């Protein structure tokens, strides 16, 4: 088995393999991928769960802090409440006489020292009386302001001031007649008057200290429940900031106290009231406006929604500058006090260590993944090794490097079995390929494998090389278009289109041989697809049909010649027939005139005119005879050239011409061609004879529809002539018909010239024609033609 024959098949197998994944890669990928996914999922789940736990933990921490802050805030506010509530109880029980100004002052002085955040304590009633003890900016120095009752309409009234140290020692006194303070118009006064119960005012900026603060007010009621006076205590809440700072000084975080409207009451570090703020109406800054990016992020949006929405703790997470933060907003839950505590802190404060551990854990997991991946790859390689060896053996087996008789060995039983089956397949394929190759090479017809896309010859056999005149190997470098003539290149395109539609491609066309000569080829091609259904190659069977094409061309030329000769012959035969028919009566006239003249002479009649008339009749009849003779001679002259020719070919061509006519009548037309010596004669005229005889037979069979009509032509060589027989199985020749006579016919539409023409032609060509009556059924017409190789025996 030669290697060229094997080449296309080899490609067949390697082509689809390239498109698939390697077993080795798949195995490695699966092993490594699987453990990677396992490690990753464990790590991730840990990561996610720890993330949740951490978040929860940080929230809990914040909650704890918030509880602490709330407690502190209460503690901050509690002293004011206790002081005022105690004072109220004393007043209502008349232990403390609220009309005694000095007693009040003394009591207030004691109470204000209870807690540093108490900025001042005071009492006011509807008479406009006002007693007020407050801290001054100077530590350990207190001021008492007393306004006696005055009419509410007055804008100015007298007031007295005393300054004392922390041991109640009077330091300084002052009097003013133009004091403008009116307690009855203050918010706390109206709020308590209205509620008749303790109230917290909204935070505001203290008039005197320009610090944010709030006022706690309680009424002093008489037994009837009427307000006798109103007690108030001012709490300076900037002190809260210091406490907040204490809570969270070193961590990245802060606690804020916010009012329900989102204004900031206390901030650990910020100065809330600018020195350059509106002096008369200073305002607390809103949380989304303060100079604290984190606070803005954490509470900006929440504060704006108002505290009414916030019942429990509200947690938020956010990120700023790559740092994660947790934040929380919670209400203080003190009756009459709608404050919020805002807390924020960096996440690392609570879980920084844990996070660090987590990163470490991920690195460890990754290392394990890589390590186990490498082990997996090594393992895959080890598992794959026998497969690789098997694959290489398989390749060598299919390429013929290993004889197919040897089986393939492998440590895997499955592979061993597959190997045996494969070897069996290869043996079978090699046998098939050998047979196919032999068929291809030894075929009597031209064969080629052609690429359907490019039209390139993949493989050709010797016969095709012979047909095209190329040396073996030359055609394999060429395409179908290369052997097509310039005006036939589109055939290569048609071939591709036809084949790709899975149709059979058949064409008869001239092709160009290597020497430039044209040759008629019949190309018959089909497409072979590979296992995946993709077009592989086309197999073409190529025949040289030049001879047939030539014969067809000759037959058509003969047909043209025949129609001409038939016309000439028909005319000649009619003239000849007419001449014969007319000759007889003309002769009779001539002889009768002669007899008449003789009779006249005998009778002694001497009418010269009668004699002249008879002489004229005689002359005219002879003249008519001469005309006819001239006509006949003229026609007879054109009998064409007689040359030697091959009778068998002519019979075959004639049959080609008449086949359509025979088929139209369901008649079989047969000629058993045998080798014949050449004959001499006018080829076209002999064809005319054959056509006439065949047509007679066809007409006879067509008239008689019984049975299957058949016409057989036979020819055989005799001593000096070749005899041709045309036989049919029709009704035969009627006994009362005189054959070969002009104008004598059995046909309804015939003129009776056919056989007559045949006889004339055959005689002119030196042969004989006759009807052989010895056949039992049908008709047999025979004619002979002289052999050109026996030319010495001619009659003339």
């Amino acid at each position: 088995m030669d290697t060229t024959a094997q080449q296309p098949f080899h490609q067949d197998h390697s082509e689809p393999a390239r498109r698939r994944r390697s077993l080795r890669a798949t195995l490695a990928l699966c092993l490594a991928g699987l453990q990677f996914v396992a490690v990753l999922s464990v790590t991730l789940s840990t990561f996610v769960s720890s993330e949740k736990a951490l978040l929860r933990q940080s929230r809990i921490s914040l909650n704890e802090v918030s509880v602490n802050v709330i407690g502190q805030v209460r503690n901050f506010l509690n002293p004011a409440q206790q002081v005022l509530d105690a004072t109220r109880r004393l007043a209502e029980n008349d232990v403390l006489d609220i009309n005694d100004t000095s007693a009040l002052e003394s009591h207030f002085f004691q109470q204000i020292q209870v807690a540093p955040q108490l900025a001042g304590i005071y009492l006011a009633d509807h008479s406009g009386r006002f007693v007020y003890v407050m801290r001054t900016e100077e530590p350990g120095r207190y001021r008492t302001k007393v306004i006696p009752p005055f009419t509410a309409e007055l804008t100015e009234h007298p007031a007295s001031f005393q300054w004392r140290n922390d041991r109640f020692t009077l330091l300084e006194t002052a009097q003013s007649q133009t004091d403008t303070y009116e307690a009855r118009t203050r918010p706390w006064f109206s709020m308590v008057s209205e509620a008749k119960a303790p109230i917290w005012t909204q935070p505001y900026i203290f008039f005197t200290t320009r610090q944010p603060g709030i006022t706690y007010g309680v009424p002093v009621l008489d037994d009837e429940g009427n307000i006798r006076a109103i007690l108030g205590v001012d709490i300076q809440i900037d002190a809260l900031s210091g406490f907040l700072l204490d809570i969270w000084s070193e961590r990245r975080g802060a606690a804020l106290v916010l009012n329900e409207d989102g204004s900031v009451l206390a901030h650990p570090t910020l100065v809330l009231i600018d020195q350059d703020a509106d002096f008369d109406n200073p305002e607390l800054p809103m949380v989304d406006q303060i100079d604290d990016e984190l606070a803005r992020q954490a509470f900006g949006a929440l504060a704006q929604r108002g505290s009414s929405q916030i019942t429990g703790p509200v947690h938020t997470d956010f990120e700023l500058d790559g740092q994660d933060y947790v934040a929380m907003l919670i209400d203080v839950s003190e009756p009459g006090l709608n404050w919020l505590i805002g807390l924020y802190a960096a996440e690392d404060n609570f879980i920084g260590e844990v996070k660090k551990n987590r990163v470490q854990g991920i690195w460890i997991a990754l290392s394990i993944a890589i390590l186990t991946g490498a082990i997996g790859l090594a393992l895959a390689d080890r598992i794959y090794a026998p497969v690789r060896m098997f694959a290489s053996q398989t390749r060598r087996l299919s390429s013929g490097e290993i004889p197919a008789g040897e089986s393939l060995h492998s440590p895997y039983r499955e592979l061993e079995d597959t190997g045996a089956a494969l070897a069996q397949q290869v043996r079978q394929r090699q046998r098939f390929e050998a047979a196919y190759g032999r068929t291809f090479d030894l075929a009597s017809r031209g064969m080629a494998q052609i690429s359907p896309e490019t039209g390139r010859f993949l493989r050709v056999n010797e016969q095709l090389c012979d047909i095209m005149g190329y040396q073996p190997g030359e055609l394999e470098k060429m395409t179908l278009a290369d052997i097509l003539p310039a005006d036939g290149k589109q055939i290569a395109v048609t071939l591709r289109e036809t084949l790709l539609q899975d149709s059979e491609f058949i064409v008869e066309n001239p092709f160009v041989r290597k020497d430039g000569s044209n040759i008629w080829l019949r190309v018959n091609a089909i497409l072979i697809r590979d296992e995946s259904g993709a077009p592989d190659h086309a197999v073409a069977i190529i025949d040289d049909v030049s001879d047939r094409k030539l014969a067809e061309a000759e037959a058509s030329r003969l047909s043209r010649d025949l129609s001409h000769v038939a016309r000439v012959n028909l005319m000649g035969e009619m003239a000849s027939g007419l001449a014969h028919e007319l000759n007889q009566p003309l002769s009779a006239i001539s002889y009768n005139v002669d007899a008449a003249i003789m009779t006249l002479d005998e009778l002694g009649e001497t009418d010269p005119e009668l004699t002249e008339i008879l002489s004229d009749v005689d002359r005219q009849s002879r003249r008519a005879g001469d005309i006819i003779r001239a006509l006949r001679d003229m026609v007879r002259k054109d009998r064409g050239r007689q040359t030697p020719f091959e009778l068998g070919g002519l019979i075959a061509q004639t049959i080609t011409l008449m086949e359509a006519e025979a088929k139209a009548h369901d008649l079989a037309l047969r000629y058993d061609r045998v080798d014949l010596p050449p004959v001499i004669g006018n080829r076209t005229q002999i064809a005319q004879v054959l056509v006439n005889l065949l047509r007679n037979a066809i007409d006879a069979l067509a008239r008689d529809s019984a049975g299957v009509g058949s016409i057989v032509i036979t020819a055989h060589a005799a001593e000096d002539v070749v005899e041709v027989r045309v036989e049919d199985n029709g009704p035969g020749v009627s006994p009362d018909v005189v054959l070969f006579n002009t104008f004598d016919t059995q046909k309804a539409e015939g003129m009776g010239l056919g056989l007559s023409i045949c006889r004339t032609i055959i005689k002119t060509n030196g042969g004989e024609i006759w009807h052989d009556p010895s056949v039992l059924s049908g008709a047999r017409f025979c004619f002979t033609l002289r052999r050109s190789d026996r030319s010495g025996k001619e009659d003339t």
Partner: protein
Amino acid sequence: MTELTVYIIDDDDDVRIALSRSLRRRGMTVAHFPDAQSFLDQVDADAAGCLVLDYGMPDMDGLELQDYLVRQDSTLPIIFISGHGGIPESVRATKAGAIDFLEKPFDLSVLTDRIAVAWEFGEKLRQQKARRLDLAEKRGRLTDREDEVLQYILRNPGRTTSKEIAAELNISPRTVEIHRGRIQLKVGVKTTIELYELFGRSP
């Protein structure tokens, strides 16, 4: 001398009758037939006269009748007449002994000329045939041995002595003398020269 007759055979009635009429007007004895068979039925192959025969006829045509008559050793000369006589047919007919091959319509004077020739020719033929028959009859009278001797004499005109003949035929000269005497007696001649005159040089 018997009366000379012109026998006309032509399938065309008009031609045949007109021709007969015309020839009779010229004083000839004419018999005519529409086909070859009726002629053969009624006329002897050695009849005196001549045959004017149409070439193309159904059944037996002119050439076929000629063949037949030649085979019968007929002495009747034949003049062919034809409606469409071609050169090949005329050649064949004259080769077979026809006087002429006339194409219709022919001049009657030509035909009468030919008839005259034919009559003369026919007369000669009949005489030759009569003499041939006479010689054959005379030779028929000889015994086998006598015929043998006669043949030798005719074949070897230079060696006619009885001795030479006896040596050749391996018999005695005396016997040869007896045979020669009987031969001359039987065929009616008196000398060997006369034998040669009668039989010619080669039988």
